[in-house]
């Protein structure tokens, strides 16, 4: 009996996974892209001083710079630039 309950439970969780995929798969890319756009904007804020845009919150965003480095690298790759476009800011 316990075996049965176990397999029913497993079946339910598998069905749940499939339903979740069915809900999410079609729009995964649209949503991820929208999120990426927002992240890009945030990155622009964090690195704005490097590009000569004054940033009143520089004191706080400076701390975030190392954390964003990986994403910055991905960003310039995505924009079709082999290396960092900024003169004094090399990431690779």
């Amino acid at each position: 009996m316990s075996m049965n309950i176990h397999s029913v439970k497993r079946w339910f969780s598998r069905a749940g996974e499939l339903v979740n995929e069915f809900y999410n798969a079609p729009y995964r890319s649209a949503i991820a892209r929208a999120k990426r756009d927002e992240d890009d904007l945030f990155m622009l804020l964090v690195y704005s001083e490097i590009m000569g845009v004054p940033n009143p919150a520089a004191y706080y965003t400076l701390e975030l710079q190392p954390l964003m480095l990986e994403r910055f690298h991905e960003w310039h790759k995505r924009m079709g630039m082999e290396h960092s476009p900024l003169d004094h800011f090399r990431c690779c």
Partner: protein
Amino acid sequence: MNAIVMMLLGLGAMFLGYVFYSKFIAEKIFKLDPNFKTPAHELEDGVDFVPTNKYVLWGHHFTSVAGAAPIIGPAIAVIWGWVPAFLWVVFGTIFFAGVHDAGAIWASNRNKAKSIGNLTGDVVGKRSQTLFMIVIFLVLLMVNAVFATAISGLLIKFSSSVVPVWGAIFVALIIGQIIFRKWMGLGAVSVLGVIALYLLIWVGPSVPLELPETVMGVSDNAQWVLILFGYAAIASLLPVWMLLQPRDYINGLQLFIGLILLYGATLLLGPEISAPAFNTNTPEGTPSMLPLLFVTIACGAISGFHGLVASGTTSKQLDKETDARFVGYFGAIGEGSLSLATIIAATAGFATLADWEAVYSSFGQGGVAAFVEGGANIISQGIGLEADIAETLLTVMAVLFAGTTMDTGLRLQRYIFQEWGGLYNIRWMQKALPATLLAVGSCLLLAFGAGGADGSGGLLIWPLFGTTNQLLAGLTLLVITVMLVRLGRPMYYTLLPLIFLLIMTVFALIVQLKGFYDKGDWFLLTLDLVVLVAAIWIALEASASLSKIKKEQKAENTKG
């Protein structure tokens, strides 16, 4: 004849087509390779390229391609009798649509999951790519105008569906919020959502809603068309998770529930087909069956729209190349089965031949309304659901499908305008709102331009829409054929359908051209001419590119 026989023959033939013909095509022609590294793995980025379970991918592919079109087309086409529509849907699905859809996935998969539009540029030539953009734009334009008209007709004829149809949008909005804010799991939400929707359908007949016959000289039909485009414009601008995603999900569930209900009720009831096998007594003004049948039923037999879904999104998520057979070919069969259910509803759902003839009193009459009425009769007698509730249920299903296609279509049209804005450096056109307004404006122009101020003329362009849709399929088949020839594989399995489609579409365009000329409908005449030029252009491109490759291959052979 009994409808069960038709159902078993149709479903059986399509199933055999999947088991044997698709196996042959997949193994011998496309030579699908389970070890081929698909773009989903090669370029995996968690955004566009994500390897996806083949059943999930099939469900997603099937629900994106199956909409209102495979219902409207066959429901109009049974006016020539049930046999022609039945044969074209069944054999079209087996030999045309399945090969086309699986082929589009394969072609895209072998080319870094590029869309068929881009592939046309790479494989056939730049000129063809331009042509492709024009044909896509025309298809989207027509689909929006036609569906707006079809929905407004349904909302007026079945006023009990107005509350559930708009209620369903609120249900979707709420589901979107619940999922987004993670208040509840998807399983529970699905059950609640479906219950809410069916409660609305149950309530619908007791609260019928009608618009005033005229408001400031605008007829009720035209009012609905305007409201629908207003809705579609807003919906296409909202973030997808808010409305589009939950509504598509509910529609997907509705599609499966609807199919099960219709086929189940047919099995239980076993209604006799009251429509004639071949209608020798067609109403006056009905165009000749050949070639119009082959463009009236586009989706359900073969549809170019599938190529867009197959290459734009499905191919980017293909886990293994061999999955293309199941996802593409079986997806086409899913859509064929929806068309088959429509044929059953529109021919076996009426008690006598006289009843049927009263509904199909002229060409373009009947249509979705016949599907709703006939289907409701079968469901209410087969499983004992009240007739007006069954009617509301099927209307809601058809309207929601058409509505989804409308705002997806509008969104795609907006992208095209934005792309043109970028191409020609027109700043304002690159923004979402002005581009959406342009898209809505062009659709409204067509909806009202085709049929006058009451906006009921949209359905006049149905055959023209079918023709354009077939042309799109023709372009995709051309891409697949050229790829096959380059690989030195047999080309007739895609070339023969291509030739057949081109002959039928050109033939149909000329027949319609004469019809529009006789009626003095200069607006549609111009549209017809544009499509005709595109069709002849495609035929020329096809023969030019194929003979060029043949020559190249010959030259290489003599060299070697």
